[in-house]
């Protein structure tokens, strides 16, 4: 079974696939799928979307949320391929170039008079952060969802701006060690001012996780030094270690019904799940399971949950079709699942993997918890933070388990152990970490952490 190949993308062949030989640079993989995730961190006004567009060629959707012309841009994801020209006459950094995800693997070098062939070195995925749902999963499980970060600072403003400290904090939370600082809008200032700001940035990042990060002056608008960013992505970001050999495990962050309403039965396509593979490899034709699955109420009022069994009928990353998908950038999985079950993101927070290999489904948990003394600082200075009340019976809380969020109700507390009834079944395991939040002054506030010690399993 060979893929309906886009011309000039490397063919993938399941028959010869040896997962133990895969790595995040395998040509057959990066021809079609991004394998390195790079967070983009910075204030929107500093040109985050222009930078991503300059590198990836993907223009992201714009929104306004206020009548003020304060544009907030929701970036989401954009993928890019990074190439280097083979011609020895082509010098750095000009020999590095990035193109969209669906570009051929060997484009011709654009440098006038060069005509050399370019070689694909990396396929990266830019993820807008913070404020992303994989953030919590990262923190709780230490899974490196993000491999590196681009931190954006506007060259025409003094550094640090208040948000810059927050952004450094975000990088630290995500435990990102590989950072590239971009001093953007350099075209708007004189050289002396740029030099002065460079000094300010160096001083500012001292002692933080970004201390040794390279600082690149760029102009995303004028496409100046974009080649340097590409070069640094190749040279400064280590190849992440990925687990390709375990049973596949994907967290679902989207699910869709892609059918035209009123389609005939024989035309209907199965549901599509979108997400990120944490480990293992998914292949076309794989028999899969989605847990917890379909949740329904039975006649006696009890809630039943049926894991979904299905088969992978298509795999894609951006518009590239795949024969197999690996951990890294977001992928889409076409299945034979009844599409109405996938409609409107109904499978978000569930997990997809091999039949019978996914963790078990819990409906109540016993956790070893520790509560904060006070809420963490979000209030203005001077005001004291509210104390965190002890957990009490019947409290309703938000619980984050991996990439799942749900409600729970405390039904018993003893010392540093608590028993929690979950509002919806969750696929997890003993030893996993959870975060607990409570409604305080009408917003959800983090009150503590916990670890799963035991639980009640759902009956299948």
């Amino acid at each position, binding site marked *: 079974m060979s893929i309906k190949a886009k011309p000039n993308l490397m063919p993938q062949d399941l028959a010869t696939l040896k997962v133990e030989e895969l790595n995040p640079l395998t040509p057959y993989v990066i021809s079609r799928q991004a394998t390195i995730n790079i967070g983009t961190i910075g204030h929107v006004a500093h040109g985050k979307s222009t930078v991503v567009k300059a590198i990836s060629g993907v223009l992201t959707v714009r929104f306004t949320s206020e009548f003020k012309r304060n544009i907030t841009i929701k970036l989401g994801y954009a993928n890019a391929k990074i190439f280097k020209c083979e011609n020895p006459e082509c010098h750095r950094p000009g020999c590095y170039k990035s193109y969209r995800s669906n570009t051929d693997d060997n484009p011709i070098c654009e440098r006038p008079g060069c005509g050399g062939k370019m070689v694909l070195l990396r396929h990266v995925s830019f993820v807008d952060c913070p404020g992303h749902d994989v953030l919590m999963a990262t923190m709780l499980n230490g899974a490196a969802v993000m491999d590196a970060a681009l931190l954006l600072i506007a060259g025409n403003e003094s550094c640090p701006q208040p948000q810059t400290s927050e952004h450094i904090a975000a990088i630290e*939370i995500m435990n990102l060690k590989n950072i590239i600082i971009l001093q953007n809008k350099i075209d708007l200032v004189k050289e002396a001012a740029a030099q002065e700001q460079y000094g300010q940035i160096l001083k500012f990042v001292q002692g933080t996780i970004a201390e040794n990060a390279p600082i690149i002056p760029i102009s995303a608008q004028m496409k100046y030094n974009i080649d340097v960013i590409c070069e640094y992505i190749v040279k400064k970001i280590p190849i992440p270690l990925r687990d390709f050999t375990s049973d596949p495990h994907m967290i679902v962050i989207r699910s869709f019904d892609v059918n035209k309403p009123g389609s005939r039965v024989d035309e209907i396509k199965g549901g599509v799940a979108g997400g990120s593979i944490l480990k293992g490899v998914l292949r076309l034709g794989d028999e899969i399971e989605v847990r917890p699955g379909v949740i329904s109420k039975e006649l006696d009022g009890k809630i039943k949950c049926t894991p979904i069994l299905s088969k992978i009928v298509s795999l894609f990353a951006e518009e590239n079709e795949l024969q197999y998908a690996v951990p890294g950038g977001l992928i889409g999985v076409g299945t034979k699942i009844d599409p109405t079950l996938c409609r409107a993101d109904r499978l978000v927070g569930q997990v997809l993997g091999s039949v019978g290999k996914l963790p078990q489904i819990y409906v109540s948990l016993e956790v070893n918890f520790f509560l*904060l003394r006070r809420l963490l600082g979000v209030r203005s200075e001077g005001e004291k933070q509210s104390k965190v009340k002890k957990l009490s019976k019947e409290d309703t809380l938000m619980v984050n388990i991996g990439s799942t969020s749900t409600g729970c109700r405390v039904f018993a507390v003893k010392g540093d152990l608590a028993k929690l009834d979950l509002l919806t079944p969750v696929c997890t395991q003993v030893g996993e970490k959870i975060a607990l939040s*409570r409604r305080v002054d*009408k917003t959800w506030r983090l009150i503590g952490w916990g670890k799963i010690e*035991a639980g009640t399993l759902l009956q299948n």
Partner: protein
Amino acid sequence: MSATSTIDKFFENKKQCQFQNWYDKFKAVTFSSVIIPLPKIFIDYLQSDDFSFGNGDFPEFRVEDNDLLDDNNWSTPTTITKPDPKYYQSNSDNEEESDDDDDDDEEEEENSSKNKRVIKQTDFPELLDKIKTAIEKMGGTVIPKLNWSAPKDAIWMNTYNSLKCTTPTDIFLLLKSSDYINHDLLQYKIKEEEDDNTTTPFVLVLRKWQNLHPSMEFRCYVKDNKLIGISQRDTSTYFNFLKDKKDKILNAIINFYDNSIKEKFNSSSFTFDCYVTKDDKVWVIDFNPIHPSTESLLFLWDELFPELIEDDEESLQAKKEDPIKEITELEFRIVQDENSIKPNLSMKSRLPLELMNLSNSDNINELLQQFNDQNKK
């Protein structure tokens, strides 16, 4: 009436869009719904930080065996974690809390006493009955909303991961967890001294639950009684069949607007959300005001209502770099990107505030560092 509006120069626009102000007029072209006026006690219930449910309120599952229910049966933690007392409470009951913490207890109690009122479902039995009857009338499954908003941001607090509710508790869990609902609650101030049973300007709307296809939901922008923009409602998903169906949908919506909406709504500029069925029949889902709190989706408010935009220095600069054209002729926008998976933009609400906006996060860093260190042990 016990209510006063908050200061908002676009509040008049908003008022017209309250569900109870348009439902009767558009009954024939929208999904059937029940409107329940809300007494003050229920508004207090929604406002209160007290968020507790008794045994039996939460869903009951079919389980293997439930040792956890046994109050004498507790695990022994596999690892002993001793969190830093600077940040974490001691969980043992007999240990004295430090002096520092006792000082401000009273002060805090006073500050937020109105958020602390403990109200149980049994304190508003009549309303509870009305809700149960309405659910039955709607066929057993409903979508709840207040005057303007549905608690879409809180679907993680629902067993079915949707707005589908079958019991009053399902409804209360969603309403009490939602920032959208809070936003609605801020629109009228209810005097504290009013009696619990006083009717407020707030209503609970229960609409018959439908498994709608998100690809066929559209937001339409009307300016001075003229339809000027239509946007795909779900802006994070690409549906490949929409391109071919675009003209058909456009015609269906134009006809619907001309016949059923035009000059019938109490305002000349507004937005409405609609649903196009497979037979190109159009239903109104909702009306929304021309207001900063309404999402402009695939348009910019600058393109639709440039006269309302207040510029500041930064935005003037942005305008110069990237000028925006005013829309004068009807434009229909759908997501054009190819098949790529993007996160749903509303997913942010699944995290606590601290992780959503990471401001002032020095403490968080220290905590996480510790947390990670402990996990490694």
